[in-house]
């Protein structure tokens, strides 16, 4: 069978494409872009939460937060490895991120301004990530789909921990409740934007769906997320900052108000509140670490010579 026909057969039969299989150049490029963006998001996402590690209000919370940020670093590593199966190098991908040529999830371009943000990010941001990633466990590319299975388990744990943090605040003092409400007010709309533009404005969706990289459209994922999240907000006693939000009996879904796509594109294009800080932080850490990485390779080379 000719390689393109074989590729199509694997896709049609819901099997997985593996690194050694033939694949169309567009498929490979789309995956590299998507997996790299995903990896960068995990790594950049360490910053907004890392921002609270030294200030966590109790040792128990400090331990949970530290472990969570470590998990995100681990997700970054698995995903860079998944991308490397497509013939690219982690350092080159990071370089593209530093140069601003690669994107990461725009949600991380917002600042974390209170302790409640740690709960809200776990609940909403990890929650939105899971909605997307559960779909990606069925992605046609084997290494990506397997990375997602592993990552999803940890993300569900993060989501529960975030929600549990908010329960504590919402059952606490007036100040704590106000802190939680302020956080959902700031994070709600950016979380909905995590699913990307409306399907009508998402030119790549059709091809990605045909290749079974993507299995559900942006708008359907967003709807799933809203349907899952609204009852959770109710349980917390938090108000979702959307006057149009209401249950639609006929559709069997929640209706919600229009998303501010101007804000979305402004942040994607680099003018969100924290875009510059995030990339500069990452570049600074990388540049300051150059001498360390050089020392490690110089030592390894010397060791090899000594052994020879």
């Amino acid at each position: 069978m000719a390689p393109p026909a074989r590729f199509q057969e694997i896709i049609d039969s819901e099997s997985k494409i593996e690194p050694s299989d033939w694949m169309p150049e567009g498929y490979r490029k789309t995956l590299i872009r998507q997996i790299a963006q995903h990896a960068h998001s995990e790594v950049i996402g360490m910053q907004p939460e890392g921002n609270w590690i030294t200030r966590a209000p109790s040792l128990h919370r400090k331990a949970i937060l530290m472990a969570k940020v470590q998990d995100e670093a681990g997700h970054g590593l698995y995903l860079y490895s998944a991308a490397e199966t497509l013939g690219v190098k982690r350092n080159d991908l990071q370089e593209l991120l530093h140069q601003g040529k690669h994107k990461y999830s725009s949600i991380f371009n917002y600042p974390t301004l209170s302790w409640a943000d740690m709960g809200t990010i776990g609940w909403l941001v990890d929650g939105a990530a899971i909605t997307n990633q559960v779909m990606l466990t069925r992605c046609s590319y084997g290494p990506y789909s397997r990375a997602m299975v592993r990552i999803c388990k940890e993300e569900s744990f993060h989501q529960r921990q975030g929600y549990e943090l908010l329960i504590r605040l919402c059952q606490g003092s007036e100040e704590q409740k106000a802190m939680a409400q302020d956080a959902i007010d700031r994070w709600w709309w950016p979380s909905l934007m995590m699913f990307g533009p409306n399907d009508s404005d998402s030119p790549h969706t059709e091809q990605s769906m045909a290749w079974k990289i993507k299995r559900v459209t942006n708008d359907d994922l967003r709807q799933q997320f809203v349907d899952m999240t609204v009852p959770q907000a109710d349980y917390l006693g938090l108000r979702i900052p959307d006057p149009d939000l209401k249950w639609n009996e006929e559709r069997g879904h929640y209706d919600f108000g229009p998303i501010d796509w101007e804000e979305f594109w402004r942040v994607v294009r680099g003018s969100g509140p924290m875009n510059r800080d995030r990339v500069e932080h990452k570049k600074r850490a990388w540049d300051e670490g150059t001498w360390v990485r050089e020392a490690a390779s110089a030592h390894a080379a010397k060791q090899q010579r000594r052994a020879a």
Partner: protein
Amino acid sequence: MIASGPQGMAAKALSPEIAELVSYGDDNLVLAQRLGEWISNAPELEIDIALGNIALDHLGVARALYTYAGEVEGEGRTEDDFAMRRTEREFRNVLLVEQPNGDFAHTIVRQFFFDVYSQILWSGLADGDDNTGAGIAGRAVKEAAYHFEFSSSWLIRLGDGTEESHRRAQAAVDALWRFTAEIASDEWLARVSSVFETAGLAIPDDPYQRVGGRDGYHTEHLGFLLAEMQWMDRAYPGLEW
């Protein structure tokens, strides 16, 4: 030449039964807090993860020791009472662990000095008569061995690697050596010297040493570390998180 506090300046003394538990708890908490500052700042992802894991281990040891100290004391004090509600003068950690991260070489040298100390300390306590204490020590000694593996191998890489890394590693040793009297013993010196030999690093000639951590007579860095760590508990007293 040992510089310590003026005589009689020890802060409110801890009761003798819990003094050691709390002092070692403070060492581990303060070091965990410092290592936590590295997260998202490390030279590469693998190092970020390793430093975070080490921080989590130290934090775990601190929590176990505080909790146990609270039980021994029997006045209902919790881990957070020890961590969040004591002042700079009441902390009993050695001065080494409160020193700022500096560059990666400073962090590695600080960690290495402390890891050698921890290995000796915990292996001495792991087969004591006190079951809970021995349990904590038994876990801590295993973790310390893994931390030592990380810090000593990095120290060797830095000492042996490039001219720059060697210069930075030696500069870190020179800067931190003055905080080692509180943790040094003959065995400590022997283990440190042996790694230094492989790494091509030298023990400084300068005999000056600064001590006082165990009496609550700290360097000026600890106050800022505590201010950051304790601010939420102090800003919202009595709340549950």
